[in-house]
């Protein structure tokens, strides 16, 4: 069996290099892979493309990555008024940003996961979001073409993993995590608890192990969230 469990956060992100495209799970303070983000912020990687609903809360969540100047491009739905390190660098032209409607962000991730090359939607028609996109009429309805968003890595947070990589989530900390787990080339998950194979009932698995490549236990650490 391939061993997916890694012993440290630093080892979990060791092969992430300059220019990587990375998805980060989390929403509303819940379900952020805060320990993995801290490990990445300790590493000398730059020019990251970050794909995430928002851009951190001051130094928290993704904020530290912007404080350090490690991110050059963002694909986000709601960067957020409290993402001050992002907003400062955005204002200075040090970070570029593509704003995507939240549900369309989800579906573009899902398209990447599902091997779809795009989809048409009415969301964004007649708005700034439609700029530069193919527009057509299907069954009398205006719609625009949206393309998948791919990434090299997804950093996500789950509640439990078994040793194979099957995942469960707590409450509303699920949010973007299962979608990103399916969409990226490599998915790295921090969890509260690692359990033996079979300890999670098959019908309770939310993310099947096929989508998970690396597991690190992070409960009790400073940024356990």
């Amino acid at each position, binding site marked *: 069996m391939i061993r997916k469990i890694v012993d440290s956060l630093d080892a979990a992100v060791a092969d992430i290099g300059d220019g990587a495209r990375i998805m980060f799970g989390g929403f509303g*303070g819940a379900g952020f892979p805060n320990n993995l983000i801290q490990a990445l912020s300790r590493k000398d990687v730059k020019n990251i493309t970050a794909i995430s609903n928002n851009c951190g809360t001051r130094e928290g969540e993704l904020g530290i990555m912007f404080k350090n100047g490690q991110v050059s491009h963002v694909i986000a739905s709601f960067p957020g008024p409290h993402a001050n390190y992002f907003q400062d660098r955005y204002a200075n032209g040090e970070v570029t*940003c593509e704003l995507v409607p939240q549900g369309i962000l989800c579906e573009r991730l899902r398209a990447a996961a599902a091997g779809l090359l795009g989809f048409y939607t009415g*969301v964004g028609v007649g708005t700034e979001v439609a700029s530069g996109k193919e527009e057509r009429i299907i069954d009398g309805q205006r719609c625009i073409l949206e393309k998948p968003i791919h990434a090299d890595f997804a950093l996500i947070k789950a509640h439990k993993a078994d040793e194979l990589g099957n995942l469960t*989530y707590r409450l*509303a900390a699920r949010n*973007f995590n299962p979608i990103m787990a399916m969409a990226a080339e490599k998915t790295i998950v921090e969890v509260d608890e690692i359990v033996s194979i079979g300890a999670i009932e098959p019908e309770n698995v939310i993310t099947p192990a096929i989508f998970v490549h690396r597991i690190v236990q992070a409960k009790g650490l400073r940024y356990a969230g």
Partner: protein
Amino acid sequence: MPDKPRLAREQIAQRAALELTDGAFVNLGWGIPNLIADFLPKGLTIYFHSENGILGMGRRARTGEEDFDLVDAMKVPVTLVPGASFFHQADAHLMTRGGHLDFAVLGGFQVSEKGDLANWKIPGSKGSGGIGGAMDIATGTKNLIVCMEHNAKDGSPKIVKNCTYPLTALECVRTIVTDLAVMDVTKEGVLLREVAPGWTSDEVQALSEAKLIVHGIVPQMKFA
């Protein structure tokens, strides 16, 4: 312009709550819409949807019972009602965009006479701005209610012929509840259904840019 009292934000929410129907699945946006949960008529059961993957969101958590894995879209710790469920963000927006919700209530900067909505960005504002779930919700929801003040802080009308602010979605608004009126967007234009206590239809028209459709004497708003 008449310098008469307008409705408080809470009264706008209270009036908008009367538009909801028993057993409905409803998403509430930021601002005035978020106040609606506090003003539900007695006997009405509503299942609140949150775009981070909750159906059946209950009241805000009290001090000591907060769980920060259970928050609403504004990061506020909440509780659940019996029958609640969790799902991921893509399914949460499948519900909004796919037309599965019975109602959504959003805030607004401008609504046009065709029902176009602008509610995500003020022209010339600093920073990146943020769309969030507004475009998916506005595009997909069958019964979209907008709650807002009738006029901007500088007095300019927010019921307009054409939106000049960045658009959220085209021809999406069904009903508008403001501090002066309740209006429905119809094929013919914006119909003035009710006016706030003490206001006349002519006065409300004078504070609107779009031409309001008026049938006879417009009744005053009721709150219960």
